[in-house]
């Protein structure tokens, strides 16, 4: 049994081993919940509906609003980050409608409660699961891929043929030639996802790391903090005095949570939006900074200049929590290192100048401080923020040093004064000064940066500038303060999702001494990195570059950063050769089979026509596993129909916005022949094992060339029969294991969690890099990130042990990005006059709900884009016209909405229309070249390296240069 194997680690890195964790208790650096006695839960008391007899027309309406039973549900794998609990009303055996399960209790009396949570999409999933897009029987392609010809086959036929195809691929090119992608359907915390994880693990497939592939990797946060989780609960926003929405649109994307911002205004807070257009989130703002697209770093740096020049900064915070006092050698423009001072010195021990002893002292908490870089506590040291210091090196030479702060100030004063930034950002310099002063003066200021802050070419520079502002003002780590992107609830029992993947015995032994001292964020980082390399995880962009035909596009001159001396091809080569970026299958091995769960690569990937035309033909087998037909599914060879969200049990992944973990019960049986993900993937493993035995398949090449036995895949998947995915209650058995082993949440069992729907968080879970925001959870308070660093003086998991603004990696120096700077993106001077921008939209979660009839009716009914009258008039474009959006890379057609709210020069098309909704299925991604930064392939330096779900290149779909021309007029068509 897996529960005897401890410590162990899940492939998904959700956890660190239990034994290691336990020893950390009491040492203060990490705290674990000791909540073993969970409160007993009782169902809400029932009330009997009143009988009202009128015997007239009005009874019709009374009869409509009646039901047979109510089941708790949610939308487990929709990859919507707002987990909301719903009451699913079942009537005549059909999930008839849903209404929010609005039972959320506030943690403290002075914040608004979270009710009701839920949006228009959640409110109509009952109809989506019965819509035309729902697939209820296994399908096999007939004719060409994408030709729209299908025949219905049995599960037995489908599973046998798919299993044979997977075996053929493994025999031919090894198991890594089977590509598994869960993409934007992401991962839940329970049986809705565990089946495919177990399958991929048992098969030793390549797994696409889509986190950054969807453009959701805040690289600037990883570079500055060594981590990116930086959110708490959304009621904590209410405690802010100055809320800046910066590269985000929460009115669209945080429908259940954004009320906290609007309510904060009534409490006296100021709401500020930084956005090129009058975005829907600007409607309720007090002040709008109508910045030119992609100049956000310049604004941030100009604010920093004002704050420093006017002495509005929190000096104590900066000295302790940032690398600004660290010493830089003036001759080399690199950190002063121990290896400079001592013959046997290390490279990762760094210094600041102690004003008390007037000498350079080794900074506690830096990676090489000799104490594992655990604590940034300054003790009696008084670091100098600024100055010129003479330091004697090991070779006897004396060099002059100054501080990161000095380097920053010099740069800010020479390049980022408000007048200079005004020329870049298009903002009035007085407005920049006002913004900087107000932010600095606010008792608590926060920047809501959102995932959209990862989708520009230089997003990392935006983020580094934003974090700089929150550090200068001492806001990071405090309630209602700091940069906010996202964080997750940990759940210890999540180990149950995986079969038995763990650290090697050697790794466990190495961990013991660290565990005895108490594990730090830096240790979690190391463990995470180790585990990340135990399976074939491959970040999407490098995968596309190597295997899917994207190299030719991305190597083009016009997509390079002109500051770098080489083409991205050079950096890719160096990164692969250094082992920094991980490529599976290895170069030269052909991908043979592709299996994707719910995600929609031919909708999502940039220039997806390349994937369709180059990658797809390499594949002998393409399998889509989904509840609905998608564009990518239309190009599949097989479609395996999955039960809809209300037809199976599951645990929604827990983003930290709400103080609850949300579970979804089964309201009705799966429609037609559809099956739960848990059963589907269990069967797939079973068929592979059986077919491998029947075909006498010997060992095949597995992970990194090791041999793998396909005749044990199902045994591995089911932990030698502990689970039987064909049993109806098997997923609840898995959920039992999750909740029995999760002291941080209120439910004791799977059944209890399903009855609750919303399971209260009651304490902190074991830390893990994947979700941890490094704050203890207090059930009687709002939750905010990074408390450990400011309250417990825990070192940040970076080279310096601080929020690090100076990165002296050689690539960063070459690129001119050793400090936060503003840089123009490669497309800045494109001859195409308009820039295509967008963002997640109000009406869908990725492509799910995109084709929902009622919701389409509340839009234009067809893909539409926004343009300002100034750009429409010269092109003779009227509202409702169909236009062609094009550049040298691709084109698509869509309807125009002429909008004074849109900034001139912008074409805004929101997220995730299915290509099949466009003429000739040419979707909105076709012109999008989405270049990405070579720097994101860097490694070998403190926090700068790849680990799964962390630190890999995202692409830059925003700002694609295009032009637009009129194709036809709506009114002419009518005439």
């Amino acid at each position, binding site marked *: 049994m897996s529960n005897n194997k401890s410590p162990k680690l899940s492939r998904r890195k959700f956890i660190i081993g239990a034994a290691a964790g336990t020893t950390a208790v009491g040492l203060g650096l990490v705290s674990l919940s000791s909540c073993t006695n969970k409160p007993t839960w009782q169902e809400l008391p029932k009330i009997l509906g009143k009988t009202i007899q009128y015997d007239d027309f009005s009874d019709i309406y009374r009869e409509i609003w009646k039901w047979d039973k109510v089941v708790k549900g949610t939308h487990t794998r929709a990859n919507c980050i707002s987990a909301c609990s719903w*009451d699913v009303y079942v009537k005549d055996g059909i999930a008839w409608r849903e209404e929010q399960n609005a039972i959320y209790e*506030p943690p403290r009396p002075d914040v608004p*409660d979270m009710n009701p949570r839920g949006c*228009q999409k959640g409110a109509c999933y009952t109809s989506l699961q019965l819509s035309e897009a729902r697939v209820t029987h296994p399908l096999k392609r007939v004719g060409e891929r994408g030709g*729209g010809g299908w025949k219905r086959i049995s599960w037995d036929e489908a599973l046998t043929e798919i299993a044979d195809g997977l075996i053929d691929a493994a025999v031919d090119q090894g198991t890594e030639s089977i590509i598994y992608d869960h993409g934007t359907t992401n991962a839940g915390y329970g049986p809705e996802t565990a089946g495919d994880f177990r399958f991929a693990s048992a098969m030793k497939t390549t797994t696409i790391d889509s986190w950054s592939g969807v453009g959701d990797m805040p690289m600037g946060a990883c570079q500055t903090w060594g981590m990116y989780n930086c959110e708490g609960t959304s009621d904590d926003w209410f405690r802010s005095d100055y809320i800046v929405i910066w590269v985000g649109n929460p009115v669209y994307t945080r429908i259940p949570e954004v009320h906290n911002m609007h309510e904060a205004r*009534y409490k006296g807070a100021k709401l500020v939006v930084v956005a090129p257009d009058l975005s*829907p989130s600007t409607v309720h703002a007090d002040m709008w900074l109508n910045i030119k697209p992609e100049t956000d770093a310049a604004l941030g740096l100009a604010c920093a200049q004002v704050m420093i020049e006017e002495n509005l900064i929190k000096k104590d915070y900066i000295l302790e929590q940032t690398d600004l006092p660290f010493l830089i050698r003036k001759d080399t423009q690199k950190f002063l290192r121990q290896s400079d001072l001592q013959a046997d010195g290390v490279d990762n021990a760094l210094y600041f100048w102690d004003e008390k002893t007037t000498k350079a002292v080794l900074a506690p908490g830096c990676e090489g401080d000799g104490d594992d870089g655990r604590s940034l506590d300054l003790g009696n040291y008084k670091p100098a923020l600024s100055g010129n210091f003479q330091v004697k090196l090991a070779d006897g030479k004396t060099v002059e040093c100054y501080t990161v702060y000095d380097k920053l100030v010099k740069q800010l004063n020479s390049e980022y004064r408000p007048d200079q930034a005004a020329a870049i950002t298009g903002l009035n310099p007085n407005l920049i000064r006002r913004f900087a002063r107000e932010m600095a003066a606010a008792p608590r200021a926060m920047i809501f940066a959102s995932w959209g802050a990862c989708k520009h070419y230089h997003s990392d520079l935006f983020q580094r500038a934003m974090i700089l502002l929150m550090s200068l003002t001492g806001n990071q780590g405090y309630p209602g303060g700091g940069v906010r992107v996202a964080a997750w609830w940990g759940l210890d029992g999540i180990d149950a999702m995986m079969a038995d993947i763990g650290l090697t015995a050697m790794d466990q032994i190495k961990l013991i001494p660290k565990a005895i001292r108490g594990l730090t964020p830096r240790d979690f980082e190391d463990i995470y990195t180790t585990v990340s390399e135990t399976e074939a995880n491959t970040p999407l962009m490098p995968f596309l570059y190597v295997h899917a035909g994207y190299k030719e596009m991305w190597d083009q001159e016009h997509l390079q950063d002109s500051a770098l001396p080489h083409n991205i091809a050079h950096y890719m080569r160096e990164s692969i050769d250094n082992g920094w970026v991980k490529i599976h299958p290895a170069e030269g091995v052909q991908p043979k089979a592709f299996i994707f769960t719910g995600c929609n690569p031919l909708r999502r990937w940039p220039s997806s026509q390349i994937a369709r035309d180059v990658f797809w033909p390499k594949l002998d087998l393409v399998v889509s596993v989904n509840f609905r037909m998608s564009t990518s599914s239309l190009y599949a060879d097989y479609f395996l129909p999955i039960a809809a969200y209300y037809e199976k049990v599951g645990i929604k992944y827990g983003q930290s916005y709400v103080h609850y973990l949300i579970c979804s019960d089964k309201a009705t049986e799966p429609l037609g022949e559809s099956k739960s993900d848990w059963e589907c993937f269990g069967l797939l493993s079973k068929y592979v094992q059986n077919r491998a035995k029947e075909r006498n398949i010997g060992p095949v090449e597995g992970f990194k060339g090791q041999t793998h036995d396909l005749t044990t895949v199902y045994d591995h998947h089911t932990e030698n029969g502990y689970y039987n995915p064909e049993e109806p209650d098997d997923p609840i058995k898995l959920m039992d294991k999750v909740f029995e082993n999760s002291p941080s949440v209120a439910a004791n069992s799977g059944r209890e969690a399903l009855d609750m729907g919303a399971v209260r968080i009651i304490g902190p879970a074991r830390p893990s890099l994947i979700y941890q925001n490094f704050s203890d959870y207090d059930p009687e308070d709002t939750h905010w990130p990074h408390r450990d660093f400011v309250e417990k003086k825990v070192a940040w998991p970076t080279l310096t042990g601080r929020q690090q603004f100076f990165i002296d990696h050689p690539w960063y120096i070459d690129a001119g990005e050793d400090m936060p700077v503003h840089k123009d993106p490669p497309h800045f001077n494109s001859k195409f006059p308009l820039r295509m921008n967008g963002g997640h939209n109000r009406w869908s979660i990725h492509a799910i709900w995109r084709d929902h009839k009622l919701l389409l009716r509340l839009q234009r*009914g067809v893909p539409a884009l926004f343009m300002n009258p100034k750009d429409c008039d010269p092109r003779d474009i009227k509202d409702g016209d169909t236009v062609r959006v094009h550049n040298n890379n691709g084109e698509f057609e869509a309807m125009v909405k002429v909008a*004074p709210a849109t900034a001139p020069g912008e074409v805004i098309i929101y997220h995730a229309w299915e290509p099949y909704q466009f003429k000739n299925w040419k979707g909105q991604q076709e012109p999008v070249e989405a270049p990405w930064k070579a720097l994101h392939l860097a490694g070998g330096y403190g926090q700068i390296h790849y680990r799964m779900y962390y630190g890999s290149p995202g692409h830059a779909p925003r700002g694609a240069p295009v032009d637009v021309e009129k194709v036809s007029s709506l009114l002419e068509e*009518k005439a």
Partner: protein
Amino acid sequence: MTSKRQMSMVMDLNKCIGCHTCTVACKTLWTREEGKEYMLWNTVNTMPGMGTPKNWENMGGGFKDGKAQLGKLPSRQEFGDAWEYNHKDVFYGGKGDKTHLQIEGETPTWGPNWDEDEGAGVFPNSYFFYLPRICNHCTNPACVAACPRKAIEKREEDGIVVINEDRCRGYRFCMEACPYKKIYFNMEKGVSQKCIFCFPRLEQGVSNACARQCPGRVRFVGYRDDQNAPIWKLVEKYKVAIPLHPERGTQPNVFYIPPIGPASFDADGDIDEQTPRIPDEYLISLFGPKVLDALDVLKAEREKTKRGEKSELMDLLIAYRWNEMFGGFDKNPATIEWA
């Protein structure tokens, strides 16, 4: 015909995010069967805009100086039809990329949210906000006055205006008379239909679906005369909640907290504190001159909380406890068991 008590709603336009959860909540509950497909008893529109039905503010109706005004009968196209699509053809038709998802039949030129997020004005001083609407359950309802069949009742117990579908003969005078154009016609049943203020829910102590399901926490519900509940305080005590188009003379019982837009820019792109982004004239055209007084009160109370002082009004609008927005109609429907 006077009601003993009057149910009422207040919608806070400073919290409405235009998400249409209200629209969907209403749709999935009341208007899904045949004949009702195109109906949206609840709508939300981006303002300024032509709204739903298209150009409704210029369709007449209501009263002027006590006299009924001629009104236009909105067409199904002006409301926006319930479009059907060729999903099956795209997915299974065997035509591949030669056919894409399209609306079947005539290409529509209007829909219930056609001018979503477009706004008015000249960039960067463009502006917009969201205006959710239901039937106003007026104290002086033009629909009731216009019906020759006396088929429209204003309920004595709560002032909810309901169309008696047993008496209605489908003359549609009510649709012409309503200045808010919130009445639809059911072609299958031959009767007019509209928002029923969720009376079956209220009867069980449960608030309206549009209000209870609103994630923006925009809508207050309750009796107008309940001095302990938010509605009376917002409408009567602080006078910050005002009706839409009061000049139409029907005395609506739905009230709005008017929107305070972001500061505008001067010619140099600096903040202009003096000129409101949403022009006063525009707000007056919607809510009448009292809107300026309401805005003044809101701004003054907000200044108090900025200074750290207490404000009952701001606390009410924050709505710390969501269930207290509903004037006692606060039961959780999931706890109801039907006999």
